[in-house]
């Protein structure tokens, strides 16, 4: 995997000859996945959300690194039960010089449901909103169906675009009585701007690059670089070559096997931030028999908490992180990552104890183990197959007759949704930057009607956890809510409802003379980049 010693030395010495690739006013970024559209509401997917953060401000900014909500288009807000009042920043102006108004906000939030032809909307972020009414031009009141403690986090994902009409729409949960929703193509070809942001898109060439120019009328702090070019370089080797040759200044999604090479290169630096995404194995706790388990007379051993505990004890997380992930991950014992709201610092690390694992298996009646195939995707998460292979070996070491099957993601998640696995590798992040959404998604009883437990495909279910999360859903007091989330995780921990492995660490690599700030949401934040001092 790693380049031979001679070759990497050659590369390092070659790099010393490099001057700057472009003027200091331009930043070139090699990105693994390109945005599918410029339209901020079109597609809920990482690359699109990453671009949106730079070109189309939301009402607020969710700083996942510090865990605080910062003002953006809304300069201030106050909450009273289910009523949220926002004051808009009068200095925030669109390209035509008009300041952002309540009509624009209502139009944008309503467009989320009505964006034409979207392959994946942001609907779940606005589901709790019942009504929006303007209060004059520069203020508005959003009322939610019940108390919604994460409304700000949800709103931070919705970019505000300019409404075609000055007249505010009547907000409802359908089409708001409107039919002109602005086509995604118009955003892509530049005839409509994506909103108000530190940058604006001046050229979008799919498969090639996206060019951003500094927005000189921006109401906030002006970004340093006049021009940013996002070059789509999906191939890992090609992306690293582009950085080494000086073709780009920054790359995202640095693959694990390139970490050492970049670390050793004095002209380059690694920039990383712990990310909220938990990589885990989920246990099928519903099927009887479970689809991929045999040798148990039709019983599903994973329903037995002793077996789940045994499997958890059999995994050496320290080794997984240090060897398989080359240190680019944080060991996990629970769902929510340490510096995300709702993390439970009191839960001890899950020990690595194969002896006790064997005892527990014997106690549960599986002295001779059982036969199980575990499932993993091969192209979804960083090093997913290698991680699954390591876990397979660790489980085999405590006497389980285990084998591994891997699928490309195009096949994998479809099967997971049809519950075809017994124990499967998955990942789930805190999309809104706090723990509640992650817990609702992963550990709440699966309830498609209400959109709960969507990633809980092992169907872990605990009345107590459900009760705690339901309560957290309507608790506005942060400390009380935090306590509820922590308690829910303690229950899951005791139940061994999941096999948490590690939280991902997002890694960028940049030239040593570029200051680039990492982001826990794995977004490329371009407006804080500048030459290093």
């Amino acid at each position, binding site marked *: 995997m790693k380049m031979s010693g001679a070759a990497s030395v050659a590369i390092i010495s070659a790099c010393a000859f490099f001057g700057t690739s472009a003027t200091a006013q331009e930043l070139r970024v090699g990105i693994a996945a390109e945005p599918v559209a410029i339209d901020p509401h079109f597609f*809920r997917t990482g690359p699109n959300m990453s671009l949106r953060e730079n070109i189309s401000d939301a009402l607020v900014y969710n700083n996942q690194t510090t865990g605080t909500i910062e003002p953006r288009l809304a300069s201030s807000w106050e909450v009273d039960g289910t009523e949220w009042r926002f004051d808009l920043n009068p200095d925030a102006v669109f390209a035509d010089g008009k300041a952002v108004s309540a009509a624009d906000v209502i139009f944008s939030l309503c467009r989320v449901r009505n964006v034409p032809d*979207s392959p994946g909307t942001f609907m779940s972020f606005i589901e709790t909103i019942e009504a929006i009414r303007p209060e004059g031009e520069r203020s508005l009141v959003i009322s939610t169906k019940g108390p919604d403690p994460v409304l700000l986090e949800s709103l931070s994902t919705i970019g505000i675009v300019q409404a075609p009409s000055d007249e505010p729409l009547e907000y409802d949960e359908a089409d708001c009585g409107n039919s002109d929703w602005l086509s995604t193509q118009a955003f892509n070809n530049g005839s409509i701007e994506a909103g108000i942001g530190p940058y604006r898109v001046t050229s979008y060439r799919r498969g090639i690059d996206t060019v951003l120019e500094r927005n000189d009328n921006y109401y906030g702090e002006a970004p340093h670089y006049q021009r940013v070019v996002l070059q789509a370089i999906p191939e890992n*080797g*090609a992306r690293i070559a582009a950085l080494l040759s000086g073709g780009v200044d920054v790359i995202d999604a640095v693959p694990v096997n390139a970490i050492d090479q970049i670390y050793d290169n004095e002209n380059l630096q690694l920039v990383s931030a712990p990310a909220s995404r938990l990589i885990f194995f989920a246990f099928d706790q519903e099927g009887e028999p479970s689809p991929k388990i045999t040798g148990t007379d039709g019983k599903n051993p994973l329903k037995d908490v002793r077996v789940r505990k045994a499997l958890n004890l059999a995994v050496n997380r320290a080794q997984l992180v240090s060897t398989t992930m080359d240190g680019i991950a944080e060991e996990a014992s629970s769902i929510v990552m340490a510096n995300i709201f709702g993390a439970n610092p009191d839960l001890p690390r899950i020990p690595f104890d194969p002896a006790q694992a064997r005892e527990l298996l014997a106690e549960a009646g599986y002295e001779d183990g059982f036969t199980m195939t575990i499932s993993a995707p091969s192209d979804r998460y960083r090093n997913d197959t290698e991680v699954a292979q390591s876990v397979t070996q660790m489980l085999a070491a405590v006497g389980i007759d285990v084998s591994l099957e891997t699928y490309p993601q195009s096949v994998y998640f479809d099967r997971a949704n049809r519950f075809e696995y017994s124990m499967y590798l998955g990942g789930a992040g805190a999309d809104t930057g706090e723990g509640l959404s992650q817990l609702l998604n992963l550990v709440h009883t699966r309830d498609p009607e209400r959109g709960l437990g969507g990633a809980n495909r092992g169907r872990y279910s605990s009345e107590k956890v459900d009760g705690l999360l339901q309560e957290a859903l309507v608790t506005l007091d942060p400390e009380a809510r935090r306590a509820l989330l922590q308690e829910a995780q303690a229950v899951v921990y005791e139940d061994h409802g999941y096999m948490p492995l590690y939280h991902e660490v997002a890694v960028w690599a940049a030239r040593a003379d570029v200051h680039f700030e990492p982001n826990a949401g794995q977004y490329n934040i371009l407006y804080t980049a500048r030459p290093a001092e």
Partner: protein
Amino acid sequence: MLVYAFRRMGQALLVLFALTVLVFVGVWMIGNPADALISPDASMAEREAAIRALGLDKPLWQQYLDFVGGLMQGDFGNSFIYREPVTQILASRLGASLELAFAAFVLAVGISVPLGLYAGLYPDTRLSQAIMGFSLIGVSIPQFWQGMVLIILFGIWLAVLPVGGRGDTATVFGITSSLFTLDGLMHLLLPAVNMALLKMSLLIRVTRAAVMEVKGLDYVRFARAKGVRPYRIVTKHILGNIMLPLLTVLGIEIGNLVAYAVITETVFSWPGLGRLLISSIQVLDRPVIIAYLCFTALLFIVLNLIVDILYTVVDPRVRDAIHSGGAK
């Protein structure tokens, strides 16, 4: 001649039809494109909305009929992910693929036909052996690895060429291409060489084998005995007669260069059709996959047709055979 062309086209349509059915059933068997597209954290309501928007809530046969219905009006449908007409998306990538194929083709033919000719005429010289050794290496090296080596060598080590992307383009006579700018040509060179190397190896071998076969035939010997100048023997008698096998191979190879540049385009981040195909397969973007494969099939059918027509130009025997009715 015309009847012949029409019959070929009829066959081609049948092939295309079978192809679309295959892709539909194939993608359907692999999984639900909605699951490959949407965020794993998405709610059920979002998932259902996506499935509806993509038309995947209808039964497969109806999806297929809708597709055929659109096709009758020349509409291949919209990409699942970009939601734009796939013909438009393919067209936007075609230029990059064509110029890469063109450059690789010129390099490959320009170098390998003379080399093959030499190796065939003088098989025992040192140079010929060197040429054949080179061609053996060329076919043995995996293109992916070879591309990386080229990048490390010329892009990072010597640092004389850019390592990826298409570079600047310019528009001449309505054609936008990177062939017209220096920056574009610099970007084009490495990927074109990477693709040409494999084709060169093949073409050298085909040319040499054909030359060696032809040069021993009676008419060449007769010409030589008659005292025809060697230059004329080579250009008229030998080159003219090796055109048939060469044309066949070239026809297929041009198609391969345009349609299957997947590896080179991936390694060099070249924004052509190959990369589009790979990324579309990863997310099961069925409309793009189908349109791409139909385009590819059509491309090969047309190229074969052109080759067949060229046969009649270079080989009077074929022309006579067709005229006398035996369209074979």
